[in-house]
Every structure is written in C-alpha cells, then in structure tokens.
C-alpha cells in the first residue's frame, strides 16, 4: 500500500508533519480503444487502496450488468463515470482522478481513445507533465499510438511512459516487449520526444502496476507507480522569465491599488523594475502580497519574493495604467509584442474553421478578437504528412497564421505554456471551437527602435499605418 498505516496509527501528527510536503504530478493516460486505459486506472486506484469498499460493491453490481471481464470485477467500471460510457463500454470524455503516495499527489487525466474524441484527449494533455501511452502487446504500434504520441509531443509533454499492456496474453514474452520498444524508439526519435520509459504490464492482472511482477523476471525497471513516484518533473525555474498576467485589479479604498494574478513563470522581488505590456510603461514593484500567506482575520502579510505558480497581489511604485489582460514582465527579459502569430491549431468543433472569420481569442486572461489568415498546412496525425487544405474540420491539427486586432506580449508555447497558449471562442455560439499554441511571434512592434534610424515623414507614417492595418499579412514593420 502507498500509505504507511503503522505510522498513521501510532503518531498522526508526526505523520502529517512529515508528509505535508508533497508535490503534484499530473499525468495523462492514452492509447488505442480497448488497450485498457480505464482498466489500468481502475487497477492503479484499486491496488493503491484508493477505491473504497462501497464504491467497489457498486462496481461489482455494475460488472454483472455491463462488465466485459466475465465473473471478475471490471476495473474500467470503477472509472467510467457517465451512463452512456458504461452502456457502451468506452470512455467519451476526459475524467480527472486522484490518488496520493507519501511523496506525491497524482492527478490523472483519463482521456478517451477514439479518434472522434481526439479533442478530449488534447484537453487531458494540456495540463499533464507525463503521458502514459498504452500499447496492446498483441497489436504493437497502431495508428492511434502514432496519433497520441504526436499530440503528447505537440502539447509539450516531456516524459512519455510506454506501457506495453496485456503482457499476460503474450506469455510475458521479452521478445515481444523488445520489438515494440525498438519500433517506438524510432517513432519517438522522429517526433523528438525527450524522455521515454518502457514497462511491460498487465493492467487486468496487476503485473508491474503497483507491485513488481514475478512474470517478468527479465524486466529490470520499476513498476509503474514507483516510476511515477520517482520521476523528476522539476523545471529550471530560476532560468525562467518572469511573466505575470494581470487578472484582477483590487481597489478596496483610495490607498490601495493592487494587481492580482498568478505568477505564470519565473519570480519577482520587491524593487524589481517591471514593464507593463503591451503598453510598454515601466515601473517598480512596491509590495507583494502572497495570497497563500493570508490567515483568516489576520493582517495581510507582505513578502519579498514570489514565484510561479503563486497567486499574489502586486502594487507598483508609480500610478500607471495597468488593467486586466496586461502582462507584467522584467524589463530586462521582455517577450515580443505583436499582433501576428504563427501557431499550431487544434480545431475542436463540428463547424469547420473559416479563414478570415472573426473569432475571440482568449490567451491567459485577455480576450482579443482576431482572424486566422492563412492555413500553412494541416498535419495528418497518423502519417505526420503535411497537406494543403482550405478549412479545418473537427480534430484537425494545422499550422496557421493568426492576426489579432491588437498586439499582445507573447511567448512561444515551448518556452512558456501559460503565455504561449490560447483558446478560440466562436462569437455567436460562445463555444470553445479551437485551441492554439504559439510557435513564433512576428517581430514587429519591438523592432521599432531598430528601424528608427531615420526620421519618417507624416505621410510615410500614415502609409505605414494603412498598410499594417489593412495588409497585416505583408508583415510590414512599424516605423
């Protein structure tokens, strides 16, 4: 069991003190239909004693009605939560589940495998640190494995655990395992997946899930849970640039004007010089309140330094205009400010994406309207081939060029998930119809200084303005 019963019984206060300092690891499970994702999660929860007796007896009753495992408990029914999922025996929407060991709290995004639910898989991948890709040992790498690996990589997940499942059905054969591992290595190289791990397992029987299996003496690695527990997912925070999207302006009285938000990346100290983007105004941090430090009915405490992902309130030395949607950054580490972005889009709606139609684009906490000007190419996620298309259908993934009505301070997604991602909202239906990741930011506004080596006439400036407004695809520089 993942929790130490004896210690809990003997001295709970000491136990709490010792295990208060957990971190969180978010992972995604994906793979082809019937690869046993729900079964694996059911098994993980069951073997780590996270399923309670009353939930188990409900699942046992349901097993008789919908079960696919004969007399045995159908583990998948422990997690498939919607009526229509239980009836059809498939996972439709992403579900989030939790369990904890003494070291970590785990948040599992249980994503569907069907191609038609790719958007839900992308949803699950967006917050994950680690992906578990299940492969049926009998079938090896399938189209779905390629698709999911592509999405996992697209969404910037750096750790991929390849769980070669149903090993019991291939007599726990080392050869089968090695063969699948070798072909996945080729695939992972092609995509550029950074860290990969391979585990032979049987979710149904519980081999190498929580406990080491006797059936795979040739496997020297750890069981899945141990691997997850030990995985290093820390980022080099100190190197990250400070980004602070202003979420809410807090003005309880005339003496206080604070800017609330969550530190998206990096850290900031009292006295640091900061720039407000996109306006470009500069000031200094006067004080910081870390919301996490405020105790009930206590005086608010200020602190000297805060870092991601703290929720804080910052006050500035100068009374300058800062509003929701602005981003505060260190003056020395500024992002590019532009209204033209090269992005990867995932279309998530039945209604196809239309070129030049105005959509609302929500990035961090700001909503700005914009258009997709051009589809550079669509990626076939099964073959990774590029295709020329005129519109995007549900679940399509494509490289596009977007122009916003106002410039934003933008980072590349691979450098900053928080400031490099956005959703697309249809202005009529209000649905989230697509999501995007910034690949590149056209250099425009911030190159002003470089182009200002000569003095332009008013007529030249007016012409420049006209071209930039009406022909943004020309990428005309601001003068």
């Amino acid at each position, binding site marked *: 069991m993942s929790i130490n019963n004896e210690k809990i019984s003997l001295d709970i206060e000491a136990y709490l003190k010792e295990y208060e300092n957990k971190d969180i690891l978010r992972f995604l499970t994906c793979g082809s239909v019937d690869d046993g994702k729900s079964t694996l999660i059911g098994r993980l929860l069951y073997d780590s004693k996270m399923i309670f007796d009353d939930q188990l007896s409900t699942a046992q009753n349901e097993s008789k009605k919908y079960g696919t495992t004969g007399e045995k408990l159908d583990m998948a029914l422990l997690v498939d939560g919607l009526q229509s999922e239980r009836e059809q025996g498939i996972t439709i929407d992403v579900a989030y589940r939790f369990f904890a060991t003494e070291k970590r709290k785990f948040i599992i995004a249980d994503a569907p495998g069907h191609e038609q639910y790719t958007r839900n898989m992308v949803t699950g991948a967006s917050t994950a640190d680690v992906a578990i890709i299940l492969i049926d040992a009998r079938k090896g790498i399938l189209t779905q494995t390629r698709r999911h690996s592509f999405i996992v990589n697209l969404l910037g997940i750096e750790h991929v655990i390849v769980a070669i499942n149903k090993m019991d059905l291939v007599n726990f054969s080392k050869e089968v395992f090695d063969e699948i591992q070798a072909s996945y290595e080729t695939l992972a190289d092609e995509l550029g997946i950074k860290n990969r791990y391979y585990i032979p397992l049987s979710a149904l029987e519980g081999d190498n899930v929580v406990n080491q299996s006797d059936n795979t003496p040739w496997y020297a690695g750890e069981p899945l849970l141990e691997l997850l527990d030990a995985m290093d997912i820390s980022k080099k925070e100190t190197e990250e640039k400070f980004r602070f999207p202003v979420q809410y302006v807090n003005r309880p009285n005339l003496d206080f004007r604070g800017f609330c938000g969550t530190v998206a990346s990096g850290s900031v100290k009292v006295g640091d010089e900061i720039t407000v983007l996109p306006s470009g105004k500069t000031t200094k941090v006067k004080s910081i309140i870390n919301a996490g430090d405020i105790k009930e009915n206590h005086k608010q405490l200020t602190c000297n330094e805060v870092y991601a992902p703290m929720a804080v309130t910052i006050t500035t030395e100068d009374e300058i205009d800062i509003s929701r949607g602005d981003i505060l950054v260190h003056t020395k580490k500024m992002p590019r400010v532009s209204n033209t972005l090269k992005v990867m889009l995932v279309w998530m709606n039945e209604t196809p994406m239309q070129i030049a139609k105005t959509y609302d684009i929500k990035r961090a906490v700001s909503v700005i309207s914009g258009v997709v000007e051009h589809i550079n190419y669509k990626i076939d996620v099964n073959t990774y081939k590029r295709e020329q298309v005129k519109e995007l259908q549900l679940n399509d993934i494509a490289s596009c060029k977007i122009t916003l009505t106002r410039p934003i301070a933008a980072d590349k997604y691979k450098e900053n998930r928080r400031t490099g991602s956005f959703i697309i909202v249809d202005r009529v239906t*209000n649905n989230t119809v697509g999501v995007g990741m910034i690949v590149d930011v056209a250099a425009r506004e911030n190159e002003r200084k470089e182009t200002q080596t000569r003095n332009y006439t008013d007529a030249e400036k007016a012409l420049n303005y006209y071209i930039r407004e009406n022909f943004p695809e020309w990428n005309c520089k601001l003068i």
Partner: protein
Amino acid sequence: MLIKKSLIHLKQLEAESIYILREVAAEFCNPVMMYSVGKDSSVMLHLAQKAFAPAKVPFTFLHVDTLWKFAEMIEFRDKRAKELGFDLVVHSNPEGIAMNISPFEHGSKLHTDIMKTQALKQALNNGGYDAIIGGARRDEEKSRAKERIFSFRDKYHRWDPKKQRPELWNIFNTAIEKGESVRVFPISNWTELDVWQYIYLEGIPIPSLYFAKEREVVEYEGTKIMVDDERMPEQLRKTAKTEMVRFRTLGCYPLTGAINSTATTLPEIIREILLSTLSEREGRLIDKDSEGAMERKKIEGYF
C-alpha cells in the same frame, strides 16, 4: 536566488483555486457562491477571503436551506456570516414548505428534488446569477470526475455531459448569453483528504458535527441518523441510543448518516480518513436511490 522554488501540493491547489475565484469575479456580472456550511464551503470561503484581500469578497453567498439541516449548521452559518460580514441570501422552496415536505414522509428522492434541486433553481432565477460557485470535488462521485471547472448550464440550468466545452490549460471560457449560467468548481482537484489537511494547516473553523461526540442516533434505512429535532417520527425516536459518532459530510439530518468514531481532533479525523475503507458519500442516502443517480440529478440542475 537559489531558494527552492516549488510549492507543496496544498499550496498549489490553493493557488489554482484562487486563480479560478478571481477569474469569476473579473468575468461575470453577478456571481454567487453556494454556502452549504460544510467543510468544503468553509474551505471555499477561506479561499475567497484570500483571493481578494485586503478587499472584501466581491460576491454574494447563497444557502439553499431545505429546512431539514442540522440545527447546528444554521447556527454556525449565521455566526460566520456575522463575523466575516459577508452577504448571505437564504432560500427555501415556498411550495415545498406549503406541501410540508418531509424526508421521513415523502422519501429522500422527492425531498431532494423539491427542497434542493427545485429550490436551487428558484434561488438562482430570483438572484439572476450568471456564475454559481460550488464546492463539488471530482473525487466525490464518478460523474463529478467528468465535469469541467467552468461548467456551462443552459437557461433551464441543465447540464449536457456530451456537450461540455473543451477546457485546456487554465484558460476558462466564460462567454454566455443572458439567462445562461456557468457553474464553477474551484476545488475540483481537491480530495477529501486535501480538504482536511488544509483545514488543519490553515486553522479553518468548521461545525463541531464533524468531531466525535456522544449523540442520540437511530437506525434508519441502514444508516445512523441523529435525533436532531422533534420532527423525527415518534416511533423512530423511541429507538434512539447514545453513541459516540461524527459526520463525514453534512446535509439534511434525516439523510446524512453518522459514523462511529472517537476522532475529536483534526489529526484524529485525518487518521480516520486515511485508514477508512469506506468513501465519504457512503453515508449519503441520496446518492443511492438509483444507479447513475448523481448524473441524472445534475442533468436536471442539481449541483
């Protein structure tokens, strides 16, 4: 610059919830926070205070009172509202009052529908709220695990599990038309254990019903029900025994089972949860009236 820059899981969860609460305050015209007096509500109230300090919490609090809540809950509610000075709206379904709906007489299903689901919809219509913040957690029940943090409701307050908006990263789509609303669950990613550890760490006040004490209980439909007032049928009341019990979850007293326990402090409660083999909602009769009960209730507008 070489300080260890990472947050423990409770502080990460806290920051995530505060972000969600601020997003609601910034994006909606008329948000409301459901205050049901339990431990999850207590945590949400605490988070809301942190999110907006030094200002006051910028939304109204709403309690849907089925009139069958534990007496202590009502007392605790009013005391907290007074202490912290938050705006509290209390609503009970007048039709239900007229019909004299009682869980003992009419059963849990009808009682819950009229005094909770219908009452909630009335209160939301009366208030014209566009965002309703609730303390539901994904670990509570399987259909909850499927729900978004910002969960869209049509103008009839219905949830369509197959038409949920994709929700990626921490970017929340808050766009709605007049009459529609969004239910927001800031503590979606917390577990029961997280809630208790956080209450312990932060010293958050909670009703004493959560702590074990000798109380008068009767056996009713397979669970231990506390004798909380005179309305319990005489016949049932006669069978009352004094036992050392506490509650893992608080709702209507005739529908909320007590558990035998000796846990009188927070660490003891946490120990009990860590060692328990039964889920938190095991004592909730309303979850069990049929398979998929919660999902169906939610589709109809229940929280």
